[in-house]
């Protein structure tokens, strides 16, 4: 019975359910504790640091031989701003680490941190991108000409010509406020010092153990062989843990310097103030449509507030440049002129967060479609039907090639599931009764599973993408799969086991997947960007095929048959059409302990390695939100949410649906609840979970998920990757639904989160205009 495609229970779960599984904060026994003294100001000169007598306090001056974090894009419009791991003579964001203190316990470390006095001379901070772009703005980074630290333009060169055929040009201005991935588990690391070997083993809550190892060794001038990095169970990450935190590097330095084991467990306040933020975009876009309501051109000016420093390794170019490259989404048009700028400010550095720029660019395109629908007197389904890509492969105006997807089919199916006509009747009745219901659509493609071919054009100094899998069968017939991906909730151990079990005809229990430990796994890029099932899965499939070849060769020797005639099923190798066969456990023993009985050309043992480095694929989905807006309070209730998703072959449908549901809720949060708020002085006002608002079970609707299945050869396993999709399409669906609900009042939502206060303000302003 095939396991791929079946919704089996996860192998990861028993340890997690019983509380046995160890997360980073569970691994601190025997360690001293590190706390960081952080800047209370957004911009200041460090005048002096006073530390208590005899205390274990370390500043930049103590960290000899430590380099700066310097992620690089090799392009002329990229400004390099090396980040010291501890502030040297100035601080440029609130929460920036200035000193590290060491004590026996975290409690005492915080006491000690309180006793360190940092004398700061305050500068006026630059907080918003708008302020940073002003002509007379202070420059955040000395040596930079302006606060624009990365920029790009894509121009197909024919905008003026195409615009002439346009009958309607729609201008939109859209804002997505700053967000925090806010995983329930904060960051943290434990650096264990081994006296015998003088090596440090770093357990780190991270999405990318190998890259972390290389990066820290670069900074500290260490040999990689002297640093083992292990990602334990990680309690959620969503992109916040896929960049190098200065704190992890400082921890390793301290452990080596002091020759002691040390732990740093971030607390929630630190996570809100100093852990990577995300989003914070402002777009102006113009869409030109012809007389048939077909989009013919997009122009845009995209601005991203990218914070004080560039995140390693993907850099602060990742959001604005991805926005520029992927704004076209699933729409069929070829004229394009878009400029994107990343603007540095005295705010927390940014890292990617689930969806990266796509939740915002999807908002932009989906608002554009809805506004155009209204202008042309079409319904939102029809305008999309006219504009979605239908022929594949499709090359976008920005040069990205889409493999086959089901954009229109997903839209039609979603419209059918949600029964738009029936909704419109309900909506009209509700309006008679003074209630405001709305429906919002969002269609998007999600670029997933892309390897170095996709990363290379970005000219990152570090080009991620491939994955390697090492597989070996032991003398007892068990298979160990060692992967470079680093799952943290995605169920990859289960899904890869399904692939291997099917490929080798073995029961699930025979397969072990090893991940997260740089000493035990091949170099890999970790888990992010919806890549693991596609790339690590593809490498796993290839490795399983190669291992299969080795197995059937030995079987052929043992059964005196041709390898092509051997079938592997149910833990046995059998000659097809006969009852002659051998148990895999016996076969494995033969391959290791009885090699003289095999053909002379056989290599001893059973091993295989494979790498996979695809160009990438695109999954797609249509999201539909049905909302009710309470126009007196501005409160929005999402009554229903429908997803029609095409992620190719689903290795484990239950895990797929879980990823979608989780992403949708984060997207609803993006649309309605979550915002990191700075005041004019660069102080963060949202430092607790009372102020930053991840939704609870009571704020979310039932989420109905349907699947289409388009298999392309862009992914070896047939799976398309989908970890982020839920978060990409949902904000636009909700914002469109709110705008639809408020259409009678003339309100269009252009900002998220669309908080009750903002909605009320828009209603007040619109009703004033109407009076």
């Amino acid at each position, binding site marked *: 019975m095939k396991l791929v495609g079946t919704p089996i229970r996860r192998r990861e779960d028993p340890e997690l359910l019983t509380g046995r599984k160890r997360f980073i904060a569970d691994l601190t026994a025997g360690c001293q504790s590190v706390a960081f003294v952080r800047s209370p100001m957004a911009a200041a000169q460090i005048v002096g640091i006073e530390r208590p007598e005899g205390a274990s306090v370390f500043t930049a001056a103590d960290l000899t031989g430590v380099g700066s974090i310097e992620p690089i894009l090799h392009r002329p419009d990229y400004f390099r701003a090396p980040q010291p791991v501890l502030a040297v003579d100035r601080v440029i964001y609130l929460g920036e680490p200035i000193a590290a203190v060491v004590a026996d316990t*975290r*409690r005492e470390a*915080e*006491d000690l941190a*309180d006793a360190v006095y940092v004398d700061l001379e305050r500068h006026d901070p630059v907080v918003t991108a708008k302020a940073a772009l002003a002509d007379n703005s202070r420059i955040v980074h000395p040596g930079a000409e302006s606060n624009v630290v990365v920029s790009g333009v894509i121009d197909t060169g024919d905008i003026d010509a195409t615009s002439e055929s346009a009958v309607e040009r729609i201008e939109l201005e859209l804002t997505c406020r700053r967000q925090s991935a806010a995983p329930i588990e904060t960051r943290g690391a434990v650096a264990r010092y081994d006296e015998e070997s003088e090596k440090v083993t770093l357990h780190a809550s991270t999405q990318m153990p190998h890259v972390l190892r290389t990066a820290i060794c670069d900074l500290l001038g260490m040999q990689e062989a002297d640093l083992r990095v292990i990602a334990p169970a990680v309690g959620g990450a969503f992109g916040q843990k896929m960049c190098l935190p200065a704190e992890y590097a400082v921890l390793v330095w301290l452990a080596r310097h002091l020759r002691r084991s040390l732990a740093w467990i971030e*607390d*929630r*306040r630190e996570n809100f103030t100093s852990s990577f933020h995300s989003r914070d975009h402002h777009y102006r876009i113009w869409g030109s449509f012809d007389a048939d309501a077909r989009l013919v051109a997009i122009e845009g000016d995209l601005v991203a507030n990218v914070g004080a420093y560039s995140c390693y390794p993907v850099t602060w170019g990742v959001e604005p440049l991805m926005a520029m490259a992927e704004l076209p989404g699933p729409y069929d048009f070829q004229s394009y002129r878009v400029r994107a700028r990343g603007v540095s400010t005295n705010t927390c550095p940014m890292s990617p967060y689930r969806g990266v720029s796509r939740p915002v660019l999807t908002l932009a395109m989906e608002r554009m479609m809805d506004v155009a629908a209204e202008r042309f007197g079409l319904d939102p389904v029809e305008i999309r039907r006219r504009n979605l890509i239908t022929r594949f492969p499709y090359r976008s105006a920005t040069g990205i090639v889409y493999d086959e997807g089901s954009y229109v089919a997903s839209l039609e199916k979603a419209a059918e599931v949600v029964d738009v006509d029936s909704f419109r009747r309900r909506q009209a009745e509700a309006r008679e009764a003074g209630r405001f219901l709305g429906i919002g659509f969002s269609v998007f493609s999600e670029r997933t599973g892309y390897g170095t071919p996709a990363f290379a054009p970005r000219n990152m100094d570090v080009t991620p993408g491939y994955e390697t899998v090492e597989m070996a069968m032991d003398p007892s017939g068990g298979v160990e799969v060692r992967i470079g991906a680093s799952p943290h909730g995605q169920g990859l151990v289960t899904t890869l086991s399904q692939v291997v079990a099917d490929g080798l005809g073995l029961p699930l229990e025979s397969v072990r997947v090893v991940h997260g430990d740089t000493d035990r796994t091949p170099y890999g890029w970790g888990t992010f960007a919806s890549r693991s099932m596609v790339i690590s899965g593809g490498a796993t499939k290839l490795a399983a095929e190669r291992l299969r070849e080795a197995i059937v060769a030995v079987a052929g020797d043992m059964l005196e048959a041709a390898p092509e005639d051997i079938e592997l099923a149910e833990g046995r190798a059998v000659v097809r059409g006969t009852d002659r066969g051998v148990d895999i456990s016996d076969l494995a023993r033969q391959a290791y302990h009885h090699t003289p009985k095999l053909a002379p050309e056989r290599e001893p043992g059973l091993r295989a390695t494979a790498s996979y480095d695809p160009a990438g694929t695109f999954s797609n989905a249509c999201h539909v939100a049905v909302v009710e807006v309470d126009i*007196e*309070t*501005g*409160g929005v209730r999402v009554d229903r949410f429908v997803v029609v998703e095409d992620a190719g072959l689903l290795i484990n449908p239950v895990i797929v649906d879980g990823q979608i549901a989780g992403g949708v809720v984060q997207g609803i949060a993006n649309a309605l*609840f979550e915002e990191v*708020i700075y005041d004019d002085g660069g102080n963060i*006002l*949202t430092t*607790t979970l*009372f*102020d930053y*608002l991840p*939704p*609870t079970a*009571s*704020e979310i609707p039932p989420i109905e998920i349907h699947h289409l299945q388009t298999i392309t050869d862009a992914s070896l396993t047939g799976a398309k990757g989908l970890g982020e999709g839920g978060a990409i399409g949902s904000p636009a669906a909700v914002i469109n639904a709110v705008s639809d609900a408020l259409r009678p009042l003339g309100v269009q939502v252009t900002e998220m989160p669309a*908080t*009750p*206060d903002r909605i*009320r*303000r828009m209603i*007040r302003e619109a009703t004033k205009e109407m009076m």
Partner: protein
Amino acid sequence: MKPAAFDYFAPESLTEALTMLRDVEGAKVLAGGQSLVPAMNFRLTRPVALIDINRVPGLDGVRIDGDEAQIGALTRHRAFEQPVVPGPLGRLMVEMAHHVGHLPIRVRGTFGGSLAHADPAAEWCLLARTLDATMVTQSSEQERRIPASDFFSTVFTTALEEDDLLTEVRLPLLGTGHLVGFSEFSRRVGDFALVMIIVVAEVQEGTVTEARIGAGGVSDIPLRLSSAEAVLRGRRWDPSVWAEAAEAGRAEVEPLEDIHGSVEYRRDLVGALIQRACRQATE
């Protein structure tokens, strides 16, 4: 986020607790801890000592004495999920109790603790103010009875002195002819109210003879909306009158501004929720 060090005492009698409060400089009372301990974990407050009153007998429980409900300060929020007080007041408290945080908060958090903490968005503070509760406080020197109108000074600040322990809160019972309504708006279930309104009206033959309208979350302390109340008094109990009262309420408040709501927004909520509370009182 670990708290600063403190000394810890767990008195087993009221006398002991009050003596400790007097003698230990800078001590704070630990009751439910659901508001105090987060503040301590953030090091926003660093008491040098905590006097844990959870083992002091006689401080919890609800007694009915004539037309008064006497609520022991240590009574947990949970207790009010059932009607422990007769009549409309009991029903009102049940409705409000479900808005107090979440279940685990209500298991530990106390009625008196909420009042002593004086968060302007706390439900029991609004209830006490609206119904003109009397706070009974004790110190080693004296017992005081403080009317609710004198109890709340500003955010997190009350008339409690350093040595005082709030031991009991007395609420007037409401006769069966009273209508009671409560309406709260918060961002998520369980969050502090952005604005909340209590309406208590005595209506005889369709006419309002007595009205109380309390607003919480609007200002630095819970408020009585006297102008809105004046609109209701002597008028028909009727949606158009509720709307007028709502307008008066909107005009009389001077809301605070914070990241969850602007001045105008809270004003909008005051108006909307007054009407909703009135409607709920009718149902």
